[in-house]
């Protein structure tokens, strides 16, 4: 039997290094993709629209104080920017490997699937953070135009927003692992974040009158609420009409509660998503 010469000098890197390699090249693919620029344009459009509206109409709600400015500007729109980033970069991150067949290029190599999953997740986080960073800079720029300082609560809100972004990407990657079709995973994620979560949250609070602690978007309320002084009470009830008439109960996640919801969502969806990807077959 013939002795075979094998390539020496090749030393397969550690799984951690391979995560870095996947991150680097996925990020390169992202920043050159059309979707990255579409997302940037949407973010810039939202920012431009807010800049023009506030500059032209000078709404009292925005200009009452620095906190009210950040609350109205940032608190109402940053979650939308985050969800959009999650959908753009996470929606088909894993399903695309199956549908577009890029997985056939990456996976039959000496690399764990978990390294590919984590590498792509980090790349999506970095790409999304760039978008979030641009939105943050424009927000601060406008804030400094109207007020002299940046309230410390905005720093807290920014940290919560980043944490929420982490969870949103965990969730979108989970859905991306669930499907083999890119369009299906993007569509389901978009519908869930843009409509279903908000709808369930409102229905549960208003009709069943229980705290919707199991909804991710409920936990994300802390991003806007931390900019309110005083912080909104956990439960508040308002009555309509004459005494004894219908009441409306509103729930607000406390900061520890919100952080716990976001954290648990991230951990659970990240683990399930990873397990799904490890087990999914390229049939």
């Amino acid at each position, binding site marked *: *039997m013939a002795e075979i010469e094998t390539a020496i000098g090749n030393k397969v890197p550690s799984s951690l290094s391979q995560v870095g390699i996947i991150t680097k090249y996925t990020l390169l693919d992202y920043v050159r993709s059309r979707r990255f620029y579409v997302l940037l344009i949407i973010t810039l459009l939202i920012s431009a629209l807010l800049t023009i509206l506030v500059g032209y109409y000078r709404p009292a709600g925005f200009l009452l104080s620095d906190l009210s400015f950040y609350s109205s500007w940032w608190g109402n729109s940053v979650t939308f920017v985050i969800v959009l980033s999650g959908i753009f970069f996470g929606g088909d991150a894993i399903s695309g490997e199956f549908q577009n067949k890029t997985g056939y290029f990456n996976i039959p190599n000496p690399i764990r699937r978990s390294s590919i999953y984590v590498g792509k997740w980090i790349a999506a986080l970095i790409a999304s953070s760039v978008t979030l960073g641009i939105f943050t800079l424009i927000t601060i720029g406008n804030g400094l135009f109207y007020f002299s300082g940046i309230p410390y609560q905005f720093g807290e809100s920014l940290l919560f927003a980043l944490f929420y972004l982490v969870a949103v990407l965990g969730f979108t990657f989970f859905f991306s692992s669930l499907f083999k079709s890119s369009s299906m995973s993007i569509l389901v994620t978009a519908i869930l974040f843009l409509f279903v979560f908000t709808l369930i949250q409102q229905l549960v609070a208003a009709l069943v009158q229980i705290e919707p602690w199991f909804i991710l978007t409920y936990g994300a309320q802390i991003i806007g609420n931390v900019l309110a002084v005083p912080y909104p009470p956990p439960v508040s009830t308002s009555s309509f009409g004459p005494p004894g008439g219908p009441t409306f109960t509103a729930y607000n996640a406390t900061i520890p509660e919100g952080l716990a919801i976001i954290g648990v969502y991230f951990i659970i969806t990240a683990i399930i998503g990873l397990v799904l990807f490890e087990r999914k077959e390229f049939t």
Partner: protein
Amino acid sequence: MASSNVPSIEAVKLTKQFGSFTAVSELSLKIEGAKCVGFLGPNGAGKTTTLKMFTDLIRPSAGEALINGVNAHTNKKKALESVGTLIEMPEIYPSLTPREALMMIAEIRGVPVGSRKKRIEDVVSEVRMEEWLDKRVGKFSKGMKQRICVASALLSDPCVLLLDEPTTGLDPRGMSEVREIIKSLKNKKRLIFMSSHLLSEVSDVCDEVAMIDHGKLIVYDKLPNVIAKFSKGANIVEVGLRSPIDATAFRTIKSIQSVIEVNTTDNSRLQIRFSGGIETQERILAEIVNMKIGVISYRPSDSELESVYLNLITETL
């Protein structure tokens, strides 16, 4: 490069079921050493499924897929350390250039930093894609992408190559070039396991064949032996000559022991039908070469492999 163990791939009662459908059924096959093995079978026979189990693209339902003795599913990273693969027609991230995509694979496979750039340029040159090295893959045709994927399989100079219909999507020139690459790998003492629908390709490139049908291995042996065993008693080899031979030489060839029949159209390409296996084939070649009549090629006839294939595999999906 240094001497190392003999590379091998082994399927041990390898089984894959998709619901009630058994794609691969208790496939046991061990291939060792420097050779090219053709993996033949009709559509749906289980060829690609088998190759996917060797590359952990799918999990076996039972049994093991071993590469160099290492389980490709439970210890994929170790098993695929020195394996180049081309399964189906992979896509590459469209925004990357071939240089970047191959650099990613080189980094993943741990090709030494100092030799990465040259290695990439070498393999890209081998598949004749030098001028496209820095263009984005998104604009490439299927054939061009397939060439880059062939380059990717060769990139780390692996000792085992698992190729699933490697010439699919290529133009005739590309097919010929890939076949030449595979032949050159045989000279470099690599183990190549390739599935193909093209029997001419298999008889041109491969030393051995494994045939599979309905997920079961039908035969695995050296190509001439398979032909001898299953071609109803006779083998055919095709001999190419530099120039036409005269009637005396023709009669001498006909008189060689075990030769049943010699046919020719222009006296420079002979079809020799003989009885016996690979040893007989070797002896006949030696005798013809000794005649010093300018032998330039000697290979099993394509039509013979086709006839064996059709004898063994009676139904296709």
